[in-house]
């Protein structure tokens, strides 16, 4: 724990008190709960837990977004929203290697309800994209909701300047840069090199090129990517988390059921919270530490407005 200097503590007190004042002052006027009013200043972190047996995953997803003030707060009418699930592997949903299709479906529906002109689902998969789309259930989600499922063609990978600390120019999956709003929808898993794969690591699926070389400096590389893509929201699917054999898994015994969703407008905060599900302190995870260092977000609970939704 870093010692807090006097100057810092004064600053912090000032900041917290202003936000408190704003939230107290604004909430009666706008009829919002305090969490929303302070969002301009503080990040929010919502944890949704399906505590009852037989709870509905889509319902939990909707409740979590509701707690954040509704998708309409983030998605404007006429927006093109691009959602980035993690569907890297052609694995069936119960193996926990890919984003839960129910969570994805609810998110797409909410975006469309909020007036999004177009919702796209994009991921540059590792296994063959056609098989990934089919096996993970994402193809069916796209078909049912009318969302565009973007096929990761090589012509859609365009070299761009990332201005990162490790990565300078890299081929980027075009839909993400052409989007009005980007929602990151990773699944929480363990990983051999980065310890965990959560929201920040999910951005590897938004680039092309020789991605396998990124592992030589994985933490800084993915933080660079996260800084570049800078999603509006991060919703971590921890309904099932992969606790061993990550990130590809392959057996139901690799998976633990946590019935949890974590929504935040702060990539670092979401990842830090999800790291807790695996029993890690955020500071143990390199990319979370680096994310905070380079100003992508925070895992300091005092700088976040937190809420818990239980279904």
């Amino acid at each position: 724990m870093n010692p807090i200097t006097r100057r810092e503590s004064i600053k912090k007190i000032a900041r917290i008190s202003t936000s408190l004042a704003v939230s107290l002052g604004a909430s009666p006027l706008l009829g919002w709960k305090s969490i929303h009013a302070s969002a301009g200043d503080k990040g929010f972190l919502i944890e949704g837990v399906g505590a009852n047996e037989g709870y509905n995953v889509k319902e939990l997803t909707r409740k979590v977004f509701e707690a954040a003030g509704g998708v309409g707060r983030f998605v404007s009418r006429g927006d093109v929203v691009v959602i980035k699930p993690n569907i890297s592997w052609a694995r069936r949903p119960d193996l926990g290697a890919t984003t839960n299709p129910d969570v994805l479906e609810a998110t797409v529906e909410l975006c469309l309800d909020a007036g999004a002109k177009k919702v796209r689902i994009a991921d540059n998969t590792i296994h063959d994209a056609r098989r990934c789309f089919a096996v993970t259930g994402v193809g069916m989600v796209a078909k049912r909701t009318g969302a565009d499922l973007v096929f990761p063609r090589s012509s859609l990978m365009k070299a761009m300047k990332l201005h990162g600390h490790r990565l300078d120019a890299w081929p980027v999956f075009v839909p993400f840069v052409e989007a009005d709003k980007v929602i990151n929808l990773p699944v929480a898993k363990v990983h051999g090199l980065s310890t965990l794969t959560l929201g920040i690591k999910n951005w590897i699926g938004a680039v092309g090129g020789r991605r396998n070389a990124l592992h030589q400096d994985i933490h800084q590389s993915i933080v660079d990517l996260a800084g570049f893509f800078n999603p509006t929201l991060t919703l971590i699917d921890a309904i099932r988390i992969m606790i061993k054999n990550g990130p590809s898994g392959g057996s139901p015994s690799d998976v633990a059921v946590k019935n949890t969703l974590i929504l935040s407008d702060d990539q670092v905060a979401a990842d830090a919270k999800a790291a807790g599900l695996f029993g890690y302190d955020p500071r143990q995870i390199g990319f979370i530490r680096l994310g905070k260092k380079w100003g992508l977000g925070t895992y300091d609970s005092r700088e976040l407005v937190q809420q818990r939704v239980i279904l």
Partner: protein
Amino acid sequence: MKAKHLVRIRRISQAFFLCLFLFLLVESRLPEDLYLKYSLVFSSDPDFRLDWPVTFFFQLDPLVWLSGLLSAHRMIQGFWWALGLLVLTLFFGRIFCGFICPLGTVHHLAGMVKPSLKGDRMIMANQKTSGHRIKYFILIAVFVGAVMGLNLAGLMDPISLLFRSLALAVLPAVGTGIKEIFDQMAASDVKVMNFLSYAAEAVVSPVFGHGYPAYKTGWFIGLIFLVILFLNRIRPRFWCRILCPLGALLGIFSRFSILRLEKDDAKCADCKSCSMSCQGAASPMPGRTWENAECLLCFNCFDSCPEGALSFRLRWSPGLNNWPEMGPDMGRRALLAGLGAGISLPLLTKLDGHIHHVSDPRLIRPPGALAEKNFLQLCQRCGVCMKVCPTNAINPTLAEAGMAGFWTPHLVMGQGYCEHTCTLCGSVCPTGAIREISVSEKIQRPIRIGSVYLDRGRCLPWSGNGACIVCQEHCPTSPKAIYLRKQVVVGPDQSLKPVQLPYMDLKRCTGCGICENKCPIRGRPAIRIIAAGESRSVKNRILLTDQ
């Protein structure tokens, strides 16, 4: 029926079957809009299968059926079609060649478009020569070879040849050309160009293949195809008349055909129009003996005769004394040479030791492939498995399988890998050389296609050149066949580096090759797959526990 109508029906039939062939060829791939009703409680992994019967033409092909029957003593799936065709041929002659065969249609077109030969030279080219016996030689060699245990039918079978040429050479070559243009457009800064490129690619990729599909020896397959197309400029339907073993087979079966060319010598004005347009060089001119076994039933002679001297008739009771001269003109030399080649080829091709000693380490057969000896009895080298492989891993061999296995399928992990839960190749193999397997069989038994080995000198963490766990990350088995151990290595700058080093567990490895495919060291990756350990070969297994 009038000749004009017969010719028209023939053209419609040719166009229909060529289009059907092309359609099934294009459909021999995973579609992009593959949907699955997911639920969160899947009992097992789905086995994806294609919607269309893409092997229909192979089932219709008696050469595929009979060569497999002679070599492996097995009936291929759907052989009833081929049997039906043989019965049809018994009654109506080589109707397949004139009306159905897509390769025949391609040759027909190649010979018809601006014919290189005019007038008398064309009439000369359409005379039967002793060269026509070559196809019988090839047929006999194929059948005798098949009896001896080596099935070479697919090298010359018209359906296999056309599928292979189009799927492994023509489509990928055109596709790569188009893709290069699209990629340039996509890289442009003009927004409209980008958009056009994306849109066009979405239309073109499902037909020509995603990305840059590549097939080893594809250039050679394409070159041969171009050469046999060019031969039509020397003689129309050169292939069908002189080389095609299926044509020879059907020619033999057409011997007792009741559909016969009737000639009225008195009406003939000797204009030679019939010879001018004859596709099979079957001597349609009155005064000569019509060559039943050579006739492709194009009905051009019937249609072109201005005097009405020629007509096709059904005759139920052919005079018995007519039969000998209507039989195929095989020649004793073709028969003997065919016997000689058929016996010597299977014996010679075993000399490289691929079957009885140890196979080439690069010979990684698709999952479900039969043991090498049985595999070579059935494989038609048609390329359907190569075309459907979603990762482009399955490629034709050059020398990996020895001479006997030329152009048979093997996996090239530099290009693709065998996806853990994909079982598509076995489901489309027309002869069952690759057995149809289910996902659960593939991953639970497991079916190994090879085994992994590591080149520590090139591996990034082992050589102290950097952190990397890419092979372990991608390893699809659970628990992983590639696992990590934390160790300290000495880097190139002599500093001690704590790294995670990959190790492998042969008991779990299925040889899928995704590690080799994804290894950041390209060209010759630090982690590679060799055929050793494959389940299909008793000799090639490594572990005592693999029984």
